[in-house]
């Protein structure tokens, strides 16, 4: 077990290392371009050379990479070109906002999809199962920006129930909590289908297993068979998949944040990408990759811990 965790941690570190080198090379290898970006199109060549000299860009690439990586490890990602604020400060505020949105969405999505998945998995092929499956296919076919458009048309312009943007200009307060409804709804609608289908497949498989048949045949109440025998085994696979899916959830969060002007991690990354704010892009990408790799680690370890067949062998 410890050996597995250690091996996974080393793999994680290797991937982070490779990603950091790739990011550094894509954004900072071309220093002439960097100087132009910072000093503006109309700066003279002398100014650019002076700036490069002063900020240590004439050092060898390897040295600069090590310096950048060391600073990044200590949480110093440089200063944003666009906002002239330290990147770490920007990241901290925006990540917190995204964590709130993402956490809400994850919680709601998982609860809905577990209930629906189990309901359709225990009665494979029934009308209820088919209805849930079709609803899941339809909702996963509507990309976030399309469903956001449709929901805005309904709830903002037609019914006039909800605000159409979520800028939270006064900070996150309860009074403005209705601004969160649409972003959460959009993300839940897009994501619950996949989770539901995973749970359904796993539940359907468990229901055909020998031990569930034995439990039913020996006369246990149906509810008890489901709750104690089937469910616990059926949830192992969806659990790991749901954690792995955090990666995809994050992609969706970025789109939704841009659509609703929600000041989160995704909005920050998008603004940085359109402005070509190199340091912010580097930092955001590193954080995103860390989240993805770490969730993969948790899912691997979790699967081993949850599955007695692997744990005890």
């Amino acid at each position: 077990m410890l050996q597995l965790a250690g091996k996974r941690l080393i793999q994680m570190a290797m991937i982070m290392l490779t990603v950091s080198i790739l990011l550094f090379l894509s954004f900072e290898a071309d220093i002439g371009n960097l100087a132009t970006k910072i000093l503006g199109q109309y700066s003279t060549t002398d100014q650019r050379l002076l700036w490069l000299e002063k900020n240590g860009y004439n050092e060898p690439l390897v040295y600069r990479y090590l310096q950048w990586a060391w600073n990044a490890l200590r949480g110093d990602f440089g200063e944003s070109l666009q906002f002239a604020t330290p990147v770490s400060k920007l990241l901290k505020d925006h990540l917190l906002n995204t964590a709130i949105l993402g956490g809400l969405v994850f919680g709601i999505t998982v609860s809905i999809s577990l209930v629906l998945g189990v309901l359709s998995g225990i009665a494979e092929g029934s009308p209820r199962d088919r209805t849930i499956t079709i609803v899941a296919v339809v909702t996963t076919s509507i990309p976030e920006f399309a469903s956001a458009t449709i929901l805005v048309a309904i709830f903002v312009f037609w019914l006039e129930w909800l605000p159409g943007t979520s800028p939270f200009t006064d900070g996150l307060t309860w009074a403005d909590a209705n601004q969160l409804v649409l972003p959460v709804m959009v993300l839940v609608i897009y994501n619950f289908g996949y989770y539901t289908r995973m749970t359904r497949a796993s539940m359907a498989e468990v229901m055909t297993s020998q031990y569930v048949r034995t439990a039913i045949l020996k006369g246990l109440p149906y509810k008890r068979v489901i709750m104690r025998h089937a469910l616990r085994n059926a949830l192992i696979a969806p659990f790991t998949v749901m954690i792995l899916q955090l990666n995809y959830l994050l992609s969706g969060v970025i789109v939704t944040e841009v659509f609703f002007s929600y000041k989160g991690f995704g909005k920050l990354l998008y603004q940085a990408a359109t402005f070509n704010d190199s340091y912010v892009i580097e930092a955001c990408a590193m954080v995103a990759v860390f989240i993805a790799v770490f969730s993969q680690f948790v899912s691997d370890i979790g699967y081993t811990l949850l599955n007695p067949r692997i744990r005890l062998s």
Partner: protein
Amino acid sequence: MTDTTAEETGTPEARSAGAKFLKAFALLSESRIGMIGLAIVVFWVSMAIIVDILPLQDPLAQTRGAVNMAMMSEDKTGVMHWMGTDSKGRDILSRLLHGSRIVLFWSTIATVVAYSLGMLMGVTAGYRGGWWDEIISYIGNVLLAFPQIVLLLVILSAFGPTSTFGLWLKSTLGLDKTIVSGGLIVVAITFSTAPQVARIVRGIVLDLKTRDYIAAAEVRGERPLRIMLVELLPNARGPLIVDACLRLGYVIITIALLGFLSLGLPPPDPDWGKMISEGREWGYFGLNMMLWPALAISSLVLGLNLLADGLREISLRD
């Protein structure tokens, strides 16, 4: 031409190809959702093909004084705009149908490129094993560690159409801006999609590798490349066809998404994602302009997903 003549002369191969197609269609027709999906996909594909001969307005023509019109309204010159006009006075119906061609064209190219590379990577990793597998899987793991949109944003901001590299492509090589943008989008999507395809193909190949016909081919002394391309890949096609349908749907979403984030194809060509983001700037007045492309893209992706479901259903039945 080849199809009909071959069938008339009755070469066994050609007959079996035609028969196979008919059989596949007959099988699919047993799955109702598969047929619904196929109908939607066929509708959009045929729209993309015949859009030029339909009696539509010019998708780029701007009508003065006919801005942000509601659906089913006539402008002063008496031209009917069935879906209204956008913020620049262009006919939405026409832009929507012309957009289907752009979306389907670029997404098909991106899917084919990503799929070819992914299959090659996957079959090599699975069949060769050893270092090949280690290296290919590692590259895949690094690329898959990025959330997809983060990877696209990184690639397109470092090497996109407005970067030094993109400007170099445009100015030095003199390439058209649509081709540069489209090409870079295809490359970015390949980076994010090919590893996923490779992973699936590798899994299938690891299983197929142990079959007797592969051992037979090896004993016959066939070269590894031939075994991979002729023996392994065609036998892996069942699950791959289903996956390709789903994948095409994701690529369509991705391309429209890039358009929505203004990182996609350059204006003024109609691109569904771009149309949504243009409408978003207008709030209530842009609603009509956003809803149609949102419905269009949802229906196309839904069609592909239903088709994939139908195909999976019949492939499980066999």
